[in-house]
C-alpha cells in the first residue's frame, strides 16, 4: 500500500446521505475473482445512462469537468454503509479518489479505506458545506489540501479545519503498512494466548 502523507486535489461534491456500497460499486460490476479493473464500475448506476453502452450521464458530477479529475470526494452522512464489499474502496482508489470527507462512514467501509490507502476524513456537515461552497466557486483552481501528519484539511488561505483520526489508523496510512506482516511478528503473543485459552475455553478449539 502507498504511504499517505498529504494530498492536494480537486474535490467533487456528491452531497447525498446514506450512499451505500451497492451504489458505489453495484454487484454486477464485480465480475471476477479479482481486485483489479473496478474503476469502470464505480457508481455505475449513476454514472451511465445505459450500462451496456456505457453512455455517460452528463448530470452526474464525476462526468463533469473538472470533476473528472477529482481525487477528493465531499459527501453526506453514513457514506459507505451497507455491504462489506472491499470493492467499494478498490473502485474508488482505482478511479483516483484518495480522500473522502463525510460527517460519518459505514464502519466496515471506513476500515476498508484505511487498508487501501484512502483517507476518510470525518468533518461536521456545516464545515463540509463550507468546503463545498469554496470548491464550487472555481473547482479546478479551488483545490483542497489534506495534511495527515498535522491532521488538517484546508481550502485556500481562509479555511483550515483540524480533523481527528485514531493514531493507529493515521500511522498505518502514513507508513503504508502491511498489517499482516506486522501482526505475524507478534506470533509468539498469539501462541501464548492460545496456550492459556485452550484451558479456559477448550470447546472453541476444533
Amino acid at each position, binding site marked *: 500500500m502507498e504511504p499517505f502523507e498529504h494530498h492536494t486535489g480537486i474535490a467533487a461534491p456528491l452531497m447525498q446521505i446514506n450512499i451505500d456500497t*451497492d451504489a458505489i460499486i453495484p*454487484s*454486477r460490476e464485480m465480475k471476477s*475473482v479479482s481486485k483489479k479493473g473496478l474503476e469502470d464500475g464505480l457508481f455505475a448506476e449513476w454514472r451511465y445512462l445505459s450500462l451496456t453502452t456505457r453512455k455517460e450521464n452528463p448530470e452526474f458530477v464525476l462526468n463533469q469537468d473538472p470533476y473528472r479529475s477529482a481525487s477528493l470526494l465531499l459527501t453526506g*452522512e453514513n457514506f459507505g454503509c*451497507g455491504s462489506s464489499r472491499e470493492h467499494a*474502496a478498490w473502485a474508488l482508489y482505482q478511479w483516483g479518489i484518495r480522500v473522502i470527507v463525510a460527517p460519518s462512514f459505514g464502519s*466496515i467501509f471506513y476500515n476498508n479505506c484505511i487498508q487501501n490507502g484512502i483517507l476518510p476524513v470525518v468533518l461536521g456537515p456545516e464545515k463540509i458545506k463550507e468546503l463545498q461552497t469554496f470548491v464550487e466557486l472555481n473547482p479546478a483552481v479551488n483545490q483542497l489540501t489534506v495534511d495527515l501528519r498535522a491532521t488538517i484539511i484546508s481550502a485556500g488561505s481562509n479555511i483550515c479545519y483540524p480533523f481527528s483520526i485514531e493514531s*493507529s489508523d493515521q500511522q498505518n496510512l502514513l507508513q503504508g503498512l502491511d498489517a499482516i506482516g506486522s501482526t505475524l511478528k507478534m506470533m509468539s503473543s498469539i501462541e501464548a494466548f492460545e496456550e492459556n485459552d485452550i484451558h479456559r475455553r477448550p470447546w472453541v478449539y476444533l
Partner: protein
Amino acid sequence: MGLTLIEKIWQEHEVINQGDGNSLIYIDRIFLHERTGSIALKGLEKANRSVRNPSHVFCTLDHIVDTFPGRGDETLMPSGKDFIISTRSSAKRADINFFDLGDPKQGIVHVVSPEQGIALPGVTLVCPDSHTCTVGGLGALGWGIGSSECEHALSTSTLTVKKPKMMQVIFDGTLPVGVTAKDLILHLIQKFGAAGGTGYAVEFSGPVVKNLEIEARLTLCNMAVEFGAWTGIVAPDDKTLEYIANRPFTPQGETYHKALTHWEQLRSDSDAHFEAILSIDCETMSPFVTWGTSPQHAIPIDESIPDPAQETDPSTQKSMHRALQYMGLNPGTKMKDIAIDAAFIGSCTNSRLSDLRAASEVLKDRKVASGVKAICVPGSSLVKQQAEEEGLDQIFKAAGFEWRESGCSMCFFAGGESFGEQQRVITTTNRNFENRQGKRTRSHLASPATVAASAVSGKLNDANSLEIG
C-alpha cells in the same frame, strides 16, 4: 464498575491491548462465501500466505449459486461459475470446512453458522459479509469485515479492532399479536436513523427481547448493521442453550458441560456502563413496512407515506424526495393502497423454519393474487428439508409460490436472476437500496407474515387485517 456483555467477550479475546483504543482480538471462527471469500483466499495464495487454522474456517456457496431446482455450477450471473469453481478449489487447497452444493450444511452463511453450532455464545466470528452481526442472536460476537481484514484473520487468527462504544437498546412492554422481530428492528431504524448506531456495539434487551425465540433474535441482530452499528447482540439465556444443544459443531460431553458454566455468566453486569441507552415501547406497535430506499424509510403499515415538506433537515428532505421518485410513490398515499408485482420470502434476515411457518400460516388455503410473482427461498438446505418434512412446501406451492433451493437468491442482484425493471416487490430481505434486487426494482421490506399477506392481497397488507377482511 461492572462490564457489559460485549466488554466481557472483548476482554476474553484480547491478545494485546495496544493502548490507543485498539486491541489485537483473537478470532475463534471465520466464515467465507463464494463472492468475497473467494477473493480473500486468492489474495492469500498470491501473497504466499496460508490459512493458519483451517479447522476454524468454514465456507459455503450462497451468493452466486442459482436457486432453481436442479441447479449446478452454471449460473445466470455472467462469470458466476468462475466464482464457484475458484472458491471450491481454493477451499480444497486451504483444507477448510467447505459446504458444497448437495451438502445439507449448504445455505446462507448467517443461517448456517447458528444452525450448525459454528456460532456459539461468547465466540468471536467474522466473515467478509456485513450481516455477520446476525450471530449476535446467540450471544456470539460477530461482525462483517473487508477482504484485506479477512486475509489478516485467516493468516493470523486475529484482527486489530477499535473498541466500539456501548449502546443498550431496550424493547419494553409486550409485543402485540402479528408484530415480529423484523418490525422491531425497522421501527428502531426508522426512529433513530440508518446511522443511529454508528460507532456502537448494541446490546438488545428488555422484556420483549427476552420473550423472542432464538430465530427472531437472529433476525433482530441481522439488521444491526442497517442501524449503522458495528454489531448487535442478545445475552444468551436458557433458550439459547436449548437451541445450540446437539448441533453438529456444538461441543459434546465434558467440554460441553464446561462450556455451559462459562456461557451462563455471559451477561452485562447490573452496573455496566453504556454510553447510550435507547428505549422503545412496543405495547402499541403494528407491523412495519418500508416506503423508500433506506431502511430508515419505514412506517407502520396502516399509515400513509410521509411528506418530505414536513421534514426540517434539508439533506433528509432531499433524500426523501429522491427515494419517492425512485419508488414511484407520492406523499400521502396509504401504504395499504400500494399494489405489488412480486413477493419474496428469503435471505439471512427471514428464511429460517419459523419464518417459513409464519408465512405458511397466512398462505394456508389462500392463493397468491393473480399477476403477482411469488418466490420462497429457504435459508439453508437443512431448513428446506425440515420445511418439506412438515409439508410447508406444499402450502407454499398450493398458494402459488415457487419453492427454491437455498441461497441468497434475489436478495441482491449480481447480474443474474432478478425482478423486472420498476417491479414493486414486498420482501423479507434487509436492504431496500436502489437497484439492490434488480435494475430499478422497488423493494418494500417487511416480515414474512406481511409479505405473505401482501402476496395474497396483491397490495401491501398485514396478516391481522387479512383475518378481518
